[in-house]
């Protein structure tokens, strides 16, 4: 694995390896001294063209716990908005010796362009590009599902296991969601059955070949498919006021038809978990009752994000270093 650009590029074994490695990373994080020497002397650049404090901090924490040097480069708000600057910035980072570039960009495909243009020699990690992909989010979601839903509800050994047979409902603004795209690809690769639930306006034209089912009816999906996990996607309020009258008539109508409240949650199977990639719009796609319930694993998702990103950085960078293995470093 040279880059991590899209979950569609991952084989089942690669995906399971990342999850297993993340589990090892998580184990080290329960110790008093959390820092591992694995990436000492390596430089990781967080190149963020969009505000996302939570994702940036997660990557920063992951890199620092592996002892990498971290440079945060925020391009948002500067005069940088035209394409050439991505090239120039990448050339600058290359000159500074970046071993990995973690990139968040509003343009779909920007990480792909960065990885294939020759502008940088380092590994490229996609931290979210436009409405395309957000692979580490999907990996942390899969990791969280495996913890809770595989191997007798998390009590048995899950190393090497995938998500075969799990039923996952992903609900909300699929059209604009990189999280949904990454999850559909990854969960399918890991053997789960995915159902996307959204108003038709928030599903892309051309969704036909996606390896999942599609429904417009959340209640029917809860009743008929009995999902093991339900993932509520963030719905941006401005989608209501877009050109053409918006993608749905009102927040109230959206919530009524597609929101997860206590009443709907109660109809989920007892073991089902509630997920959200954050940040939440409480009262829109998810009610406080659902978000704060014991079956919500939303805070855990955040914690797992660090372990998964440590695993991704480790697998992309440390394996190039001869003699360095996770087992040795973690000893």
């Amino acid at each position, binding site marked *: 694995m040279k880059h991590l650009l899209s979950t569609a590029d991952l084989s089942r074994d690669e995906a399971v390896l990342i999850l297993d490695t993340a589990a090892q990373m998580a184990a080290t994080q329960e110790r008093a001294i959390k820092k591992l020497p694995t990436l000492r002397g390596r430089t990781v650049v967080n190149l963020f063209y969009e505000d996302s404090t939570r994702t940036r901090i997660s990557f920063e924490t992951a890199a620092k716990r592996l002892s990498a040097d971290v440079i945060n480069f925020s391009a948002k708000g500067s005069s940088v908005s*035209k*394409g050439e600057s*991505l090239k120039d910035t990448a050339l600058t980072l290359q000159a500074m010796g970046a071993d990995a570039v973690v990139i968040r960009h509003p343009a779909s495909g920007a990480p792909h362009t960065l990885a294939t243009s020759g502008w940088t020699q380092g590994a490229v990690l996609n931290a979210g590009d436009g409405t395309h992909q957000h692979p580490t989010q999907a990996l942390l979601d899969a990791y969280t599902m495996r913890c809770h839903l595989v191997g007798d509800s998390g009590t048995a050994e899950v190393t090497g296991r995938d998500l075969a047979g799990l039923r996952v409902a992903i609900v909300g603004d699929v059209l604009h969601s990189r999280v949904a795209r990454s999850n559909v690809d990854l969960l399918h690769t890991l053997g789960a059955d995915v159902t996307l639930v959204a108003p038709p306006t928030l599903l892309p034209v*051309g969704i036909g070949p996606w390896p999942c089912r599609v429904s417009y009816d959340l209640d029917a999906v809860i009743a008929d498919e009995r999902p093991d996990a339900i993932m509520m996607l963030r719905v941006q309020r401005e989608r209501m006021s877009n050109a053409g009258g918006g993608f749905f008539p009102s927040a109230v109508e959206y919530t009524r038809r597609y929101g997860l409240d206590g009443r709907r949650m109660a109809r989920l199977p007892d073991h089902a978990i509630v997920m959200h990639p954050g940040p939440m719009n409480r009262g829109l796609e998810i009610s406080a009752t659902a978000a704060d319930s014991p079956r919500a694993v939303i805070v855990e998702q955040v914690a797992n994000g660090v372990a998964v990103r440590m695993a991704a950085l480790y697998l992309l960078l440390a394996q190039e270093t001869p003699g360095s293995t996770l087992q040795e470093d973690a000893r």
Partner: protein
Amino acid sequence: MTTYLIRGGRPYGEEVADVLVRDGVIVALGPDAAAQVDGAVVVEAEGCVVLPGLVDLHTHLREPGREDAETIETGTRAAALGGFTAVHAMANTSPVADTAGVVEQVWRIGRDSGWVDVHPVGAVSVGLAGEHLAELGAMADSAAHVRVFSDDGKCVHDPVLMRRALEYVKAFDGVIAQHSQDPRLTEGSQMHEGEVSAQLGLAGWPSVAEEAIIARDVLLADHVGSRLHVCHLSTAGSVEIIRWAKARGIDVTAEATPHHLGLTDDLVRGYDPVFKVNPPLRTAADVEAVRAGVADGTIDIVATDHAPHTVEDKDCEWAAAAFGMTGLETALPVVQLTLVDPGRLSWRDVARTMSEAPARIGRVTDQGRPVAVGEPANLLVWDPRGTRVVDAAAQATMSTNSPFRGRELPGHTVATFLRGRPTVLDGRLVLAPTSHLQEEES
């Protein structure tokens, strides 16, 4: 003036017939021509096809305003190498070609460059803003003699403005060349809306945004009894609408580009902005429908939509990149590859779709003429044998945004004649055409 004998070639790819060119006209054909070899410069054309010089109805020469991407000089050199003897220069320059002054300037620079005839296209609306009619009559009456009007790059989307434009140009037998794109359905659009855009997370440009405008425009043209030309149609549905309109007797002509004949939206998967174009590359089914439309005559012409862009405008992430592809130097190779070699077009059909029909639509009377005695010697000698790898950096166009770069394409230009003077010989530009021009005028 030098006499040229084009020897051993096949006019329209049919029977071998030598062609003798003198004083700007074809003076003899066949054995008659061969008999006058003495004193003539011989252009060996054995195995080659002899066609009327190609006429492009849709070229962006970028001058004035974006001389960093292309100039009239470099663009017309590219045209000559591509086998063209006339191009129509689109109006979306800076300043916009919406006055007699600007179209005359473009026409003059084109004439002084001397590689091909440059026919400026006039803007339909002032500043391409889609609000007020530009002075179409003044442009028609100018030295540039404008007959094709287009806001290309933008759609004349206001139905009332479109109606008025269609009506108004009847006074001087003009035509409105529409860039059919509903602006509201394509806000922020990046590529064809379909399976690939869904996967790539790029905002979609739906086929209906093109088809709805074409449907409206053919009905408007019918209503006011005027001439409509549909630029670069790209979808199967658009072909159907044109077929329907022609069956009803509506005076509409349609064009397809080589890239819509040869490339699909699958190419966008690598996010290489060289494949970013407007209208976008469509699906394989659309490509097949467009090919069928050209083959059965529903689509009248192939035009390049040659749209050069600087490296800065293409060497970036997809969303930041400009729309457009170069095309003058690859147009005929792509047509040969996609239509001639598979047997769907004859060379006579190529003459019709790339020379005669575009000249007729543009009301250019001295181009797109038959290869016959007494006709102006605007000629292309084309060798259809062999293939070449497209090297964008080696092309005459200033820009390198060829979507065919690195690909092997068939055929090449051996010679191009503009009114009896070679602009290209042995596949290379004949330098200093300006001196030819002066000679011609003296």
